[in-house]
């Protein structure tokens, strides 16, 4: 039963990684860049919810909704101001800018909220479920997180496969110039991608902080890096890859903490990443990156 509890916790954490990883993987697919500030957008989402709920006493639903709106605008603003001017710049310049944006967001949060970590009240009003005479207990957060993340992933997949905008996104990610010839506005498509990724990150933020409670200006960094690892693990640019990578990563992390070492949990996660990339450099579902001829 203990194992089952750990497994469920792992899947729960992993599905949060998955939906955060969607932001990395979609942006990479379309803009061919790693948005390292994505993790800090999660942190901002956390503080918006915290402020609205704990300080202003708003209800959880509206607080999360507001965080989604703020994160969407933030993601689009970052893209417009920091990344769009660098569209033709070398990828190293873009990478350094992304790291700069990340530190900027952390420091702004530090200025406003201070370094001390805040206690985040769960936004999930669901009670824990007790099964098998109390031998298996599933938290309300887990009960909500897993199905919600699955719905988000299926919904996003459906949107990308079936909508015109989604088709435009696939076209841009495969061949920007050919997409332009079809009349696709590439800048607008990139902006929409950032918007979607950031809105989903806000939901991920609500779920993650509800389960782990600690919120500080650097709280987005570690989950951000892990979601990025999940995206690479699954094959960067691939949406199903982000889902599989995220869930695997969450399960591996929780099980290694439980059975191998509490301290070494993160180290094991990164070790596995290195091994996977040595064996299959494109990740589990990644396709070979096509070089332009």
């Amino acid at each position, binding site marked *: 039963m203990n194992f089952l509890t750990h497994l469920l916790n792992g899947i729960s954490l992993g599905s949060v990684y998955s939906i955060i990883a969607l932001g990395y993987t979609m942006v990479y697919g379309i803009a061919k860049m790693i948005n390292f500030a994505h993790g800090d957008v999660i942190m901002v989402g956390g503080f918006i919810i915290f402020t609205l709920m704990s300080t202003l006493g708003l209800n959880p639903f509206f607080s999360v909704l507001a965080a989604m709106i703020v994160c969407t605008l933030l993601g689009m603003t970052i893209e417009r101001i920091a990344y769009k001017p660098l569209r033709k710049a070398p990828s190293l310049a873009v990478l350094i800018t992304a790291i700069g944006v990340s530190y900027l967001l952390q420091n702004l949060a530090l200025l406003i909220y201070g370094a001390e970590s805040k206690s985040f009240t769960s936004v999930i009003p669901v009670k824990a479920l007790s099964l098998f005479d109390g031998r298996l207990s599933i938290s309300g957060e887990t009960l909500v997180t897993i199905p919600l993340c699955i719905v988000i992933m299926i919904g996003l997949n459906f949107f990308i496969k079936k909508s015109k905008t989604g088709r435009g996104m696939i076209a841009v990610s495969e061949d920007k110039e050919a997409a*332009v*010839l*079809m009349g696709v506005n590439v800048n607008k498509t990139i902006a929409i991608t950032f918007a979607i990724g950031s809105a989903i990150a806000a939901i991920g933020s609500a779920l993650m902080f509800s389960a782990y409670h600690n919120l500080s200006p650097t709280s987005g960094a570690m989950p951000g890096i892990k979601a990025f690892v999940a995206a690479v693990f699954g094959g960067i640019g691939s949406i199903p890859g982000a889902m599989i990578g995220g869930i695997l990563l969450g399960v591996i992390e929780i099980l290694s903490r439980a059975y191998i070492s509490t301290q070494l949990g993160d180290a094991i996660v990164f070790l596995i990443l290195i091994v996977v990339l040595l064996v299959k450099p494109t990740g589990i579902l990644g396709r070979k990156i096509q070089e332009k001829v």
Partner: protein
Amino acid sequence: MLEVKNLQVYYGVIQAIKGVSFRVEEGEIIALIGANGAGKTTILQTISGLIAAKQGEILYGGVDLQKIHPHKIVAMGIAHVPEGRRVFSQLTVYENLLMGAYTRTNKDEIEETLEQVFTRFPRLKERKNQMAGTLSGGEQQMLAMGRALMSKPKIILMDEPSMGLSPILVEEVFDIIKSINKSGTTVLLVEQNAKKALSIANRAYVLETGNIVLEGDAKELMNNESVKKAYLGE
């Protein structure tokens, strides 16, 4: 309908197009022929807005296309069948065709054009739900042409549509170009297969390292001694 005046295009410091002028009248098939690296693709990409020109004008119905956002050019009636087809391999044949109609909004009209494209290319209808990346080279060429037709263009720019195809398919492709033109679409055709291109064109321009060195009636050019020597292998 389309008039290019003193076009100059650079890649970095290298000048690829050195002051090219030509015009395309409504209803014509114009061939632009030249060897590898002459600058044919560069000219078409500049017309479509993928590359910015350093100098010159590209007038289409009196408007300078360089002042138009590249993604808005197709909606003005200019479709481009790019070199190497460049179909979207992760989309199905049907979805690729829908991409061709990306800027159109009337569903019924799109459906009507789709039927016309399927009538012209029955193979595409058979393979409607197949991933475009798994099509043969010839089928991909048909798809690239069908996709361009989905925008209901007034003029279609074709970049080496016969490249890499078997002789039978080459014939077929040129027949299709003729029939597309017959149904009212102007064609600007870039080809290395000068013989075939000249045989269906009204007029032609010969491009050499960024300059137009010869122009005129296609039939006359076919009998021109230097064209015969350099491009027709006679």
